[in-house]
């Protein structure tokens, strides 16, 4: 009787394995097609267990990555409320690995570090209680968080090279937070080439070029083209383009007769636009 059961078990296993011989090549082909289509989630390393907890890691194996990502978002939110930036960073790190295609998650995670954490570094009263090397200054830690935010966006564009929106965000962060207009100009150029970014990136590319040392002439030609194109199509040119062209005319010492006829834009308006941009944390949108 026992022998009969064992014989049956072995035979059943053999039948299943035989089916496997037919199935596996078909499955492999299907999986490689799914990988090409971006349908197979990138496998998580075992090292992720420490970051997300054992049960959450196991849950991701059962096809509930998205659910675990929401759980990690809740943890990130909680850490943000407590101003625990390490917790925010860790939670978002897991979210990026779980759902690298979630563009908004990359943007939000980076914003927490390059804006919230970096500003918080300059305001926290408990600064002295931190276990940091004595020579470390607040400014250094702030800059580290800005760099971390920029690194997140750099990874984001690497993972989603077709997203114009990510290039736009990356460019703005490089420009306004990283103070690197040359790198920002390159990112804006990519944003123009990819779908999903706003039309303003066309102008912003010119502004960042204007701030990039050595590329002023290129910026002047580019912005002047925008200005002339608007005039040819009887469109109203946005004030910031006029401001930028006029600045460049002075900087490049363009002959008076070749300068654009518009009046020097109001300095007060300019200041108010810049102040608005700083207050809202948004790009300068005249």
């Amino acid at each position, binding site marked *: 009787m026992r022998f009969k059961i064992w014989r049956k078990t072995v035979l059943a296993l053999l039948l299943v394995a035989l089916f496997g011989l037919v199935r596996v090549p078909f499955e492999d082909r299907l999986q490689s097609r799914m990988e090409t289509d971006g349908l197979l989630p990138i496998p998580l390393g075992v090292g992720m267990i420490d970051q997300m907890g054992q049960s959450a890691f196991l849950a991701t194996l059962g096809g509930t990555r998205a659910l675990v990502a929401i759980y990690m978002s*809740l943890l990130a*939110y909680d850490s943000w409320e407590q101003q625990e930036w390490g917790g925010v960073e860790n939670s978002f790190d897991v979210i990026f690995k779980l759902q690298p295609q979630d563009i908004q998650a990359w943007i939000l995670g980076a914003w927490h570090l390059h804006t919230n954490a970096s500003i918080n570094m300059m305001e926290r009263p408990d600064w002295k209680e931190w276990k940091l090397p004595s020579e470390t200054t607040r400014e250094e830690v702030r800059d580290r968080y800005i760099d971390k935010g920029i690194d997140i966006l750099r990874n984001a564009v690497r993972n989603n090279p077709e997203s114009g*929106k990510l290039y736009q965000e990356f460019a703005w962060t490089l420009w306004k937070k990283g103070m690197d207009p040359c790198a920002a100009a390159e990112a804006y150029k990519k944003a123009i080439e990819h779908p999903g970014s706003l039309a303003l990136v066309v102008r912003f590319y010119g502004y960042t070029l204007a701030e990039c040392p050595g590329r002023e002439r290129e910026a002047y030609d580019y912005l002047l083209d925008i200005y002339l194109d608007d005039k040819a199509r009887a469109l109203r040119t946005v004030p910031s383009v006029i401001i930028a062209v006029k600045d460049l005319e002075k900087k490049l010492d363009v002959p008076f007769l070749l300068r654009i006829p518009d009046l020097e834009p109001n300095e007060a308006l300019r200041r108010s636009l810049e102040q608005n941009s700083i207050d809202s944390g948004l790009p300068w949108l005249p």
Partner: protein
Amino acid sequence: MSEPLAPIKTMSPGLIVGRVWTLAASTFTQLVRMRSFYFILLFALLIAAASNLNLLFSPEQKLRVIKNTSLGAMSMFAWLFAIVATAMLIPRDLEDRTLYTILAKPVSRFEYLLGKLCGVLLTIALALGAMLILFSVVLWFRETGIIAEQRQVLESSGRFSEQEVASELAIIARQGVGWNLLLATWAIFLKSAVLVAMTILISTFASSSLFTIIVGATFFLIGHFHKLAFQSLSADMDESTLITVLGKIIGLVIPDFRTFNVVDMVAVGVPIAPGVMTSMSVLALFYIVVYSLVSLFVFFDKEF
């Protein structure tokens, strides 16, 4: 002199389908009586919570949270139900002695197994369908509200052109109700159907429900990572022959559930090609047919 009795026709296709349907319907009733549909109430609460969750989310993320939560919960329900409910069916029929009554009638063991399989699949399909409708309605309401709200915000700011507003709203709408949700639900169903067939196969060997649940859940987990685990192990151990052979054997015996894991990617908006969906359905059908035949092979002359 009395005439000999005509043999009872039990093998006509109509009768077989009728008997399988009767068994499937009774299995469905049996599972409904186990209060398995209470999960839908829990699901409704979960969606309500998810749709009111606001963790600094952008408009499209708000929709994605509803989608992620719902698809995740549906996925979890489907695989848990597929293992636990299926594992309990044959032992319960044995305990209630229903199995003896059924098999004493002109019902073949194949029809019995097929009836059980169809009953569980029917329950899962109806539950998933109900959940899909429920969450699509919630998602549609939220989508409509969010798009109207965003349109007003973008237009009143005066900073964006009509084209830019339309493109921003299209990004949000991509996270709303669409055919992809139906395909994702179908993928969840396929995965659970394979799991049901596998669990029935295990339960034909098993002596208790607990054993079936434990082995089924273990196989389900292993089925998600065995290929990757053995690839990584093999690389770590300098392409060890033993590890490679062991990996291949496990790969032949245990289903690769990763193939059906498209839900996570659908949740972030990756489109599924119809060809992929068809191949996936064919693969699932193969699994179900083969596992059912092997189950029959084991169950055919099993003594109770």
